[in-house]
């Protein structure tokens, strides 16, 4: 796996800063000058890229690390499964000024094609525009294709360049915090925008073992539901989220009490955190496992978020360490979600990666440590 994030361009760097409770959130002069209500965000500095190709560059940087770590050549018939929100949002912002640009050439598929081109992959890539849940969708779809035997290797993940479109939208809808994102905190006041990428190399377990590789983790199942309730607000009772988690558990034949850790969506908004908390209580009862959220550290990286957070889940399994939830300081009793303020060693086998997108798209990806 490989990542590109505001807290580091390597999994190890990102992980160590997360364990220290660091946050990449800060004020940005350019956002203040542009008149946004809030000028706090989590952004990656020093990335050079062609005009309107920041998303592709972030994806390629993450892919490069993933391919290198795997030690695998990338065959022409590799499956590519890539998620984002709009793709190159800067192109859409440019078009909104009335200037001419080919938006089809800058949509989500353009980044997926960029990965394919980089590695000489001839299979048509799959582009998934399910925004905040896109990474989970991409990995789930990759696993399905591998299981069906259509491909032997998959490159899957998500990327999202910093989006002023999203800044305006979230700011205008009063979903954005003025300073920090505080998941499940009694003083939470909204989300912060981030950016980044995470890419994974996936193959069937038997193939990895046959070549003597040790998998980083095993993907067991993906639960997907749709709230069918509201364009942006989650079902207040959390029932859609609950069903996504239950689907993941039932598909894998795993009981709630076997879950060691839940990486929450934890966007830091009043409504979303409550709905997620309700769902977790409905699934786990009084015994909600240790939860974590990284959006206080990295902001909400939209199409890259669930992929980056999956990388953290895998790294946590590797390190057998539960991470803290940066910027979570005082638990909201209405949520009552068990977050850590510092890292904790633990036996970690089963981990849920939850991610929920606009349109009521709920995803819960269940993974397991390999040495079970």
């Amino acid at each position, binding site marked *: 796996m490989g990542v590109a994030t505001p807290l580091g361009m390597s999994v190890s760097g990102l992980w160590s800063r997360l364990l220290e409770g660091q946050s990449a959130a800060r004020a940005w002069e350019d956002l203040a000058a542009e008149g946004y209500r809030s000028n706090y965000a989590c952004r990656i500095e020093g990335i050079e890229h062609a005009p309107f190709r920041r998303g592709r560059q972030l994806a390629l940087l993450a892919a490069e690390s993933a391919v290198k770590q795997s030690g695998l050549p990338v065959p022409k018939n590799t499956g590519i499964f890539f998620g984002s929100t709009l793709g190159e949002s800067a192109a859409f912002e440019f078009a909104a000024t009335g200037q001419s640009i080919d938006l089809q050439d800058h949509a989500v598929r353009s980044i997926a094609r960029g990965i394919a081109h980089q590695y000489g992959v001839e299979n048509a890539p799959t582009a998934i525009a399910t925004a905040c849940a896109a990474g989970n969708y991409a990995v789930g779809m990759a696993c399905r294709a591998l299981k069906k035997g259509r491909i032997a290797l998959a490159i899957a993940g998500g990327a999202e360049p910093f989006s002023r479109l999203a800044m305006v939208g979230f700011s*205008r*809808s*009063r979903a954005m915090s003025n300073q920090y994102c505080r998941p499940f905190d009694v003083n939470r*006041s909204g989300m912060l925008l981030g950016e980044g990428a995470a890419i994974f190399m996936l193959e069937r377990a038997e193939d990895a073992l046959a070549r003597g590789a040790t998998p980083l983790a095993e993907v067991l199942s993906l639960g997907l539901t749709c709230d069918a309730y*509201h*364009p*942006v*607000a989650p079902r207040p009772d959390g029932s859609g989220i609950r069903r996504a988690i239950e689907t993941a558990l039932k598909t894998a034949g795993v009981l709630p009490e076997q879950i060691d850790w839940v990486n929450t969506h934890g966007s830091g908004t009043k409504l979303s955190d409550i709905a997620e908390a309700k769902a977790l209580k409905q699934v786990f009862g009084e015994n909600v496992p240790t939860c974590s959220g990284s959006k206080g550290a990295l902001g909400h990286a939209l199409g890259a978020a669930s992929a980056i957070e999956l990388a953290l889940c895998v790294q946590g399994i590797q390190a057998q360490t539960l991470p803290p939830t940066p910027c979570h300081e005082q638990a909201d009793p209405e949520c009552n979600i068990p977050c850590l303020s510092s890292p904790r060693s633990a036996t970690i086998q089963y981990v849920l990666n939850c991610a929920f997108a606009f349109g009521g798209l709920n995803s819960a990806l269940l993974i397991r440590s390999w040495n079970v």
Partner: protein
Amino acid sequence: MWHTLGLWHTHPIIIMSNEQLIYQLRNELRGIKPVLPENFPATDNFRHDWDLDSLELVEFVARIEQQYNILIPDEDLPTLISLHAAAAYVQNKLIH
């Protein structure tokens, strides 16, 4: 002489009757939710009487901010429960 007469202003004040303001706000809201009747009462509660949701209301507030060049902090949002309340709020902001 101008100071004595109180005609010296440091910035322009938009003078508008409450009726005119309510008319403008009603049009703005109907632009967001076209099913609203043309002359729905100014005292009707947005949520209880017309089932406007939070997204529609924040859009309404964003348009008010842009139209009248005012900033409406989050803590004031709950007071904007009707056209009448919104007009009073805007008038107050414009004067101050």
